[in-house]
């Protein structure tokens, strides 16, 4: 939600003191936390399974269940792909976590991850029309997680990995993508990277830059930025103009820890070799010098990037400071130091880079196409579609991405995603883009109607702390 006073409204010469917003943010987060806990106690779970077929009497169960249902089983036994036609598999995904990196909380374990996974399932339901089953899994090793997901996969049309620690998340995603005949997505990598790339495409256009000649710095080499780096290169970024910086400084081929990365973090290892520091050595200061773009996804400390660092960049630089809840530099400080475009991860500043802009549409699209996988081409197609919709409404330095209010974008992203899957030859269901769009829109509208109707009929109870019964979604 947009705050009454956004930092953008303040004069840029008066840099925002870092303490006040943090305290304000903490107070707000604390109050929301208390309310979440009270409501969790009241509702005892955020989703439940409901019938999607008529049940008039128990007699109907002779077709919904035994004996009639045996024939449906036999059909699927003959042709396993029929499980996408004759059951809800086509629209059902598992939200898988081991609870090893939940929000900013760290390794809270699977049971404590459940409320977060339920919340994600609700988002999938409400925004994407997807049946998402929260499945925190108790595992000891990465291989146990991989094997468990593979064994669970016959029930699902897709897998969403959530809140799994880096660097193990990379191998888990790669291995599951390789071994499963359904799309596997890790939102912390792909969702965030797609939203970042979408914003960057528009930021480059606004500042008359060509990605092929852009010098880019990625600050932070966690799940999101490693995926972003890979997508940037796929989009035409010259790896020798790309510098990754982490706690140890610039990542280059002969850095002391590169051999260790070859064992533990294959993607980061390959990026060390491909970029070789983008020709730079040293730390963030050396990396920023003359750079066109900095994409930061590092740590919530507003002094991570200094105004001097921004001033050392090329003219009209692009600054994405995406750490949550506090960006690596406050937007008005970055602008005062010359940044042409600033994006953050927060909804109370302009240009929020938010993975929730991506995953509902992407999943709608791959599920409707019955895609067998979800390659980077699909992630890029989703990013381009997202970028195009900000463009529709007029690009500006403070409008490079659609906002979460623009729910109309989701079926468009779904259609672009599904069409790309068909083009790549990985779709089981082949329809035109318009057909995919109509279908996605219908499913998403049905989902909102369902939620509204349940609320209006009192089947979902009014929030107990809102005597009026709440003013929920329309």
């Amino acid at each position: 939600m947009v705050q009454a006073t956004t930092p953008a409204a303040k004069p840029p010469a008066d840099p925002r003191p870092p303490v006040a917003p943090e305290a304000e943010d903490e107070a707000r987060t604390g109050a929301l936390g208390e309310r979440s806990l009270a409501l969790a106690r009241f509702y005892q779970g955020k989703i439940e399974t409901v019938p999607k077929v008529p049940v008039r009497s128990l007699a109907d169960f002779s077709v919904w269940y035994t004996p009639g249902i045996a024939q449906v089983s036999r059909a699927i036994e003959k042709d396993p792909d029929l499980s996408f036609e004759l059951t809800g598999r086509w629209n059902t995904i598992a939200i898988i976590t081991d609870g090893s990196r939940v929000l900013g909380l760290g390794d809270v374990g699977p049971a404590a991850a459940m409320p977060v996974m339920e919340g994600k399932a609700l988002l999938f339901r409400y925004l994407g029309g997807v049946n998402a089953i929260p499945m925190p899994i108790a595992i000891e090793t990465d291989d146990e997680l991989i094997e468990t997901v593979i064994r669970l996969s016959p029930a699902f049309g897709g897998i969403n990995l959530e809140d799994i620690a880096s660097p193990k998340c990379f191998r888990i995603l790669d291995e599951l993508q390789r071994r499963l005949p359904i799309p596997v997505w890790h939102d912390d990598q792909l969702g965030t990277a797609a939203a970042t790339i979408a914003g960057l495409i528009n930021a480059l256009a606004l500042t008359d830059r060509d990605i092929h000649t852009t010098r880019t710095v990625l600050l932070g080499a966690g799940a999101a930025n490693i995926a972003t780096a890979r997508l940037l290169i796929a989009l035409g970024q010259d790896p020798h103009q790309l510098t990754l910086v982490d706690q140890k400084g610039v990542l280059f081929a002969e850095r002391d820890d590169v051999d260790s990365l070859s064992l533990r973090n294959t993607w980061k290892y390959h990026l060390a070799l491909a970029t070789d520091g983008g020709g730079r050595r040293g730390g963030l200061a050396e990396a920023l010098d003359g750079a066109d773009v900095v994409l930061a996804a590092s740590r919530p400390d507003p002094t991570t990037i200094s105004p001097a660092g921004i001033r050392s960049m090329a003219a009209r630089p692009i600054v994405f400071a995406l750490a949550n809840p506090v960006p690596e530099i406050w937007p008005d400080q970055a602008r005062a130091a010359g940044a042409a475009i600033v994006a953050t991860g927060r909804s109370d500043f302009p240009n929020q880079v938010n993975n929730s802009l991506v995953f509902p549409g992407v999943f709608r699209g791959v599920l409707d196409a019955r895609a067998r996988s979800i390659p980077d081409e699909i992630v890029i197609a989703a990013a381009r579609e997202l970028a195009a919709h900000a463009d529709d409404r007029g690009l500006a330095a403070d409008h490079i991405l659609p906002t979460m209010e623009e729910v109309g974008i989701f079926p468009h992203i779904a259609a672009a995603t599904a069409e790309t899957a068909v083009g790549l030859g990985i779709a089981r269901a082949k329809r035109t883009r318009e057909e995919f769009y109509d279908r996605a829109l219908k499913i998403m509208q049905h989902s909102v109607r369902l939620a509204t109707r349940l609320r209006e009929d009192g089947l979902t109870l009014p929030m107990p702390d809102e005597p009026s019964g709440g003013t929920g979604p329309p």
Partner: protein
Amino acid sequence: MSHSPHPPKESKGHEAGPSASAGLPVHLRVATLGDVPALVPLVLRLKSLNEEFDPLLKVRKDAEKTATEILTRDLKDPEAIVLATEGVGADKDRIVGIVRARIRERPFYAPEREAVILDIYLLPLYRRHGVGEYLLEEIMKIAKEKGAGVLTAEFPLQNHIAASFYNKRGFRPTIGLYSRTL
């Protein structure tokens, strides 16, 4: 070879054939005493990598001195093989890799002499071009000339990248080394 920056002071009379390196981004030759300062950091990088696998492989503070001594000793020892890998093009004359092997007796088993690869390391940018394979072929040739009937390799059991490299090239696990702290 003829472009070697260091005159071969302790040459064993063997030089890896340049024809075998055609198309590869490296140039392989027998190491000389003058190479030791450039070889030591490569050995240390390898040992630090081993440290990743087990606390019992913690690298000692005096490792640099030890590496210098061992390399200097082996370069004078006919029962040792030390090859240096040089870059080509802009990296010409720069040492980018090392292989060190020693000939050992096998008192109870036949064949009675084995060559054991103790150190093998390539800087990251030179990997994945078939250089490792080439290094291995050269070491095999020299080991045979020195009368070895078996080629073995020592590396931490948990190094699955090394295990996979050797498995693909006809090696199989024979003797393991299990350790515990005392």
